């Protein structure tokens, strides 16, 4: 890689140990992905926040570097393990809570905005078209590339952290001009958000860096998020373009057979003991829509709703929270279905959700069975 004099000096340690480590990470990542240089980025979104995923090693590492590390660009944060407002309802042990709060403190000390959200694209103002960012959350990276006209690779927790500290990222893959060599032909009629989640999951499996998707009508926000969440879960692909793509592209159909294979892979139960909504977290628009769908109805079992704290606060002010709680919902900020420590196989056999991303992690990480249903089906079957 070509480095500037300043980058060389940082790599030698002349700007301190933290800078040296951050540049080592960027250069190792850049060499591994054939980048020729580093370029400036304007916003980093970090993963590696939930104590459930990073454990003691992560907690100790962050606590150590937070003494000296400070972020150089706008930096936001993925969800953590719980909502401090209601954590006492979920029987989480004290060690988990104190380690999670230590992680929170380390990031805040470094100057990171404690957003605890996997939908930065919905709760922050978007930079101008073509801006280079560094997003480690997979659904957010895909959304940024595909819907928000931003440029990012699917970053790791470490490359995004190094980008936050240096304000730079390796210039490779999706940061350059990119034309996919594969087109997925969407063949399913009347798709809902669950269909789009499965389409995304399929795309992540067959695609490499980016894919074209043809035959897709205009999608609502819920479906866009489901598509991004599904794709980020199953592979390395981090961008889709709508349309047929280059005529020379390889074509793959997403039809009933492909869809039912994915459904069979992720749907392992006929019904759930509880319902979760949100992975990716719900935004205000979805909370508002859910509130009106639940008018005069209430859930027959527990329903956990995950959203960012800013959305929870707005929902409270507008009055959605009262309505949702009346309908039997538990509203949780700062955390998400994905990799939640709040659902365990000791207490729960199976979960009903409309999230493909949630389903994958509930099954593989929490070890519980999953019953997949679209939101409208959930409301029809699970409320009265």
């Amino acid at each position, binding site marked *: 890689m070509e480095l500037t004099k300043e980058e060389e000096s940082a*790599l030698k340690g002349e700007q301190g140990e933290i800078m040296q*480590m951050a540049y*080592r*990470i960027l*250069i*190792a*990542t850049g*060499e*591994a*992905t054939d980048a020729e240089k580093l370029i400036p980025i304007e916003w980093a979104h970090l993963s*590696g926040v939930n104590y459930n*995923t*990073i*454990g003691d*090693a*992560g907690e*100790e*590492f962050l606590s150590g570097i937070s003494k000296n590390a400070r972020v150089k660009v706008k930096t936001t944060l993925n969800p953590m393990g719980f909502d401090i407002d209601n954590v006492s309802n979920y029987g989480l042990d004290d060690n988990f809570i104190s380690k999670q709060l230590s992680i929170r403190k380390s990031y805040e000390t470094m100057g990171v905005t404690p957003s605890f959200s996997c939908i930065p694209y919905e709760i922050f103002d978007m930079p101008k078209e073509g801006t280079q960012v560094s997003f480690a959350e997979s659904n957010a990276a895909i959304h940024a590339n595909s819907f928000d006209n931003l440029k990012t690779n699917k970053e*790791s*927790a*470490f*490359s995004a952290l190094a980008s936050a500290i240096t304000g730079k990222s390796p210039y490779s893959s999706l940061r350059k001009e990119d034309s996919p060599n594969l087109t997925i032909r969407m063949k399913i009629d009347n798709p809902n958000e669950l269909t789009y989640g499965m389409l995304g999951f399929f795309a992540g499996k067959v695609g490499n860096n980016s894919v074209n998707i043809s035959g897709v009508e205009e999608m609502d926000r819920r479906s866009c998020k489901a598509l991004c969440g599904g794709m980020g879960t199953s592979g390395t692909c981090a961008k889709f373009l709508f349309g047929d793509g280059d005529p020379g592209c390889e074509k793959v159909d997403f039809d009933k057979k492909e869809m039912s294979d994915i459904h069979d892979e992720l749907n392992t139960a006929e019904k759930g003991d509880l319902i979760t909504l949100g992975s990716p977290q719900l935004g205000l628009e979805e909370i508002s829509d859910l509130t009106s769908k639940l008018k005069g109805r209430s859930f027959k079992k527990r329903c956990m709703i995950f959203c960012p704290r800013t959305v929870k606060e707005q929902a409270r002010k507008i009055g959605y929270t009262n309505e949702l709680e009346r309908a039997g919902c538990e509203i949780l900020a700062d955390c998400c279905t994905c990799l939640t420590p709040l659902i365990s196989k000791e207490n729960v056999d199976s979960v009903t959700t409309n999230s493909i991303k949630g389903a994958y992690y509930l099954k593989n990480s929490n070890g519980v069975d999953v019953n997949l249903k679209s939101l409208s089906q959930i409301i029809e079957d699970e409320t009265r």
Partner: protein
Amino acid sequence: MKILVQGKIQGIILKSQHSINFLGTVDKKTGIISDKNHDLFDKSIKDSILVFPNGIGSSVGAYTIYSIKSNNAAPLAMICQKADLTVATGCALANIPLVVIDGEEFSSLQTGQKISLDTESSNPITFL
């Protein structure tokens, strides 16, 4: 050859034909591989020049590499056949020299050989 993390070191090769999942199969305190199906089962990677095809598994494995180093149980250097981001970032965090070599060179390295690795040199790997 690709140089992912720079450094200069001498040591004895410990080679594996298997990929390594650092999260969960390497003991953080001793560097001992705990996976019964691994060809390095029960061996410690501590102070070796660890030669293996590539890392696999969660990117959180990078923290494990950092922990192993903090506990003085890390390899002196790593040599892989394929670059993967977990090992790359882990070695970068822990400041463990890391290079990626082609298949032919990979085949020429064997457990027990003493080598010198110097990423600044025009011929980074030399047999001693």
